[in-house]
């Protein structure tokens, strides 16, 4: 990398807190694998050596929401499950991002039915919608790169209310 060369030359370099924070955030996104149905299989494939999500710094799939930055909602969200997804999302510390992976999650998909939520954006703030049924693993990596681009543009002052404690919402 150019960083070593720069340090060898001057012994220091200047940057902004915004750039540094965004750079470190975007290169270690820890995903919360919210694998609800078949999209989760493709999500697992992303973790394997062939596709290797570790190349993007996101290999640490945490199964506790308290250590995660990104929720990958992979699968059909029913009305009954929506409350669970929301409860887990609320336990994730700010800042946090959401990928709606697959057709079901984005729009209800082929389940045009009374029991499936027709798009999780009805109760979650979705950052990237991912097409496919299920999407190819490359497609999920593409979504991750888009999230990284988005995080790269964030500034510290975008999150004025940030605390070290995880924020839980007041309603259930």
């Amino acid at each position, binding site marked *: 990398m150019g960083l070593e060369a720069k340090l060898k030359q001057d012994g220091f370099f200047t940057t902004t807190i915004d750039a540094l924070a965004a750079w470190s955030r975007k290169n270690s996104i820890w995903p919360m694998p919210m694998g609800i149905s078949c999209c989760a299989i493709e999500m697992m494939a992303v973790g394997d050596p062939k596709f290797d999500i570790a190349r993007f710094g996101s290999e640490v799939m945490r199964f506790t929401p308290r250590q995660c930055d990104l929720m990958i909602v992979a699968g059909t969200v029913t009305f009954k499950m929506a409350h669970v997804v929301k409860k887990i999302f609320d336990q994730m510390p700010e800042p946090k991002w959401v990928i709606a992976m697959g057709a079901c999650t984005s729009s209800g998909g082929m389940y045009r*039915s009374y029991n499936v939520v027709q798009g999780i954006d009805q109760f979650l703030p979705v950052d990237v919608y991912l097409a496919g049924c299920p999407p190819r693993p490359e497609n999920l990596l593409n979504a991750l790169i888009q999230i990284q681009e988005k995080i790269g543009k964030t500034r510290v002052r975008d999150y004025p209310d940030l605390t070290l404690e995880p924020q839980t919402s007041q309603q259930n």
Partner: protein
Amino acid sequence: MKIMEFKESLLQKIKDSLPKFEFTSSESIGELTFSINKKDIVMVCQLLKNDPDLSFNLCEDITAIDWARRTDRYTVVYHIFSMDNKFRLRLKCNVDEEDCSIDTVSSVWKTADWEERETYDMYGIKFNNHPDLRRMYMPEEFEYFPLRKDFPLMGIPGSLPLPKK
């Protein structure tokens, strides 16, 4: 051939053991169906399971049919299987809309407990004396029965609450 013999002995056995029992039997694709009155269901099931020659020891499925405009609106369908004789039998009971209930067979087959709960959840047919007749798939506070013909495909708006954004 063996199956045909078993069918004869099954019919004979029922006639001998339960002389007053009324039913009609029909056959489709080699499978036997009994249409019976709903008051007889527990008695018949006990005989079918406990008789050592019949031993219908597996209750494969319990479901229902909503005929919408028919006088007896619902039909409860039992699929039972005898592992010893490798024979499958279907029982059908009509249930009308006013008295939308039928006796439970969970005392005969333990697995009927959840199958009846599922049928109750989807069709609203009550199973008398059931040990734990709660909803299975839908949330407990849900007021409708989704597989009834008068339930719209996309549901009743607002009946299933979503978490707030």
